């Protein structure tokens, strides 16, 4: 197995003591621990998966951990994002992550990339690291991570979660395995997979899958064992079962095949349903003073934090009793924090006979990032 971290960094006497249980493992030893210290691992996403991955990699002695995230800690994150505590609500996730990780291991160099990963910055960010761990929460970013990793020949330790199900693998065509596009050449059709909806997730699930990702990242750095290359490991928490699927490279892969059609990073639209409108479209509609009603379906405690001026406040749980307050004749633009609850509100209103409905893709989070007045 080709080493992804060829160099080593010497250990201090404090580190020799700290990593003593590693050092007695033949698969790690002093050489492996020095490789871990020299290693640079990029975590894309500081959320459910990113939390356990970061904690375990920092504890294990990975020398440099970079994190890409632009979100702030929300109370609803605390049920599974174990890097963030109650006192961190409202704080940037990267700040919260940096505090915890450097307290856990002061030898760690933490690098924060407080940005959305985009076609213009992904290659530059990824190239600074030896291993990439994908803990993002949406398809466009997952394709971007995959494509950037393939183009810059970096292993991509993949994990994803949904309700009680999780999956993990390692993508690395340069190490003989497939890439994500070998399995899924194109993103799912609009609205087919609830990536933009808040489908729910059992809090322990990212712990299970994230630790598999952390294990694979460490194995790659050590050059130990059999990586999850060409293998998809699927976990179901309700059945408490793991299944392995062998899924080889696609000889016609549009990205890592011999005749690629994807040779540079391309934007994959965030909009994922024909009912969606983007925050930019909403902004333009407001500037044109179009006749529509903006409906905020978040909870009252969220209204207090931020709002899009002029919105009607109607929390999703109250919608079945109060939808009559909304005019059927006007266009209704529904929004929540990220687009999931408003998608459910849209479905409900459609069932009540409303026809002029739109969902704000990315919710107020996207609005604040891209269009705040």
């Amino acid at each position, binding site marked *: 197995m080709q080493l992804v971290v060829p160099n080593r960094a010497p250990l201090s006497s404090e580190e020799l003591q700290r990593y003593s249980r590693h050092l007695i493992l033949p698969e790690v030893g002093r050489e492996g621990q020095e490789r871990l210290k020299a290693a640079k691992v990029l975590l894309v*996403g500081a*959320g*459910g*998966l*990113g939390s356990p991955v970061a904690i375990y990699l920092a504890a294990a002695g990975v020398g440099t951990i970079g994190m890409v995230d632009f979100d702030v800690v929300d109370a609803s994150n605390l049920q599974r994002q174990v890097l963030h505590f109650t006192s961190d609500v409202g704080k940037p996730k990267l700040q919260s992550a940096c505090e915890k990780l450097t307290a856990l291991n002061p030898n760690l160099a933490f690098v924060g990339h407080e940005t959305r990963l985009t076609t213009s910055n992904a290659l530059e960010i990824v190239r600074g690291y030896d291993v990439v761990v*994908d*803990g*993002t*929460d*949406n*398809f466009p970013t*997952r394709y971007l991570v995959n494509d950037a990793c393939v183009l810059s020949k970096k292993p991509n330790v993949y*994990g*994803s*979660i*949904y309700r009680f*199900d*999780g*999956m993990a693998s390692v993508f690395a065509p340069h190490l003989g395995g497939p890439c994500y596009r070998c*399995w*899924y*050449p*194109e*993103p*799912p*059709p609009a609205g*087919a*997979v609830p*990536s933009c909806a808040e*489908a729910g*997730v059992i809090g322990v699930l*990212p712990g299970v899958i994230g630790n598999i990702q952390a294990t694979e990242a460490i194995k790659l750095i050590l050059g130990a064992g059999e990586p999850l290359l060409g293998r*998809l490991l*699927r976990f179901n928490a309700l059945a408490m079962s793991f299944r392995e*699927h*062998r*899924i*080889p490279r*696609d000889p*016609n892969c549009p990205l890592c095949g011999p005749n690629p059609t994807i040779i540079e990073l391309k934007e994959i639209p965030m909009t994922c349903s024909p009912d969606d409108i983007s925050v930019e479209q909403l902004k333009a509609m407001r500037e044109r003073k179009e006749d529509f009603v903006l409906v905020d379906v978040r909870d009252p405690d969220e209204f207090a934090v931020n709002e899009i001026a002029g919105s009607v406040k109607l929390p999703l749980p109250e919608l079945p009793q109060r939808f009559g307050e909304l005019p059927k004749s006007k266009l209704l633009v529904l929004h929540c924090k990220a687009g999931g609850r408003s998608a459910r509100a849209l479905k409900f209103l459609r069932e009540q006979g409303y026809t002029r409905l739109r969902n704000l893709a990315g919710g107020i989070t996207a609005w604040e990032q891209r269009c705040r007045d």
Partner: protein
Amino acid sequence: MTEAPATIMLNGKSRKIKQPCSATELLSELGWKPTQVVIEHNGQVIPRSETGAIMLREGDQVEIILPVAGG
């Protein structure tokens, strides 16, 4: 004369399909393109170029592995 429908196990649940029916036709009935999913036929991943040629028969085990993005 049309053939009687066959029963396959799809992701652990029984499902009736018309006969003949290729893996691509099953995906299309479910709203998927072969480029959007991984499909296993009796425990083996079907290479994408063969999805149209694999014919599904009575008693076949089919597993469609959908992409998941959550994190």
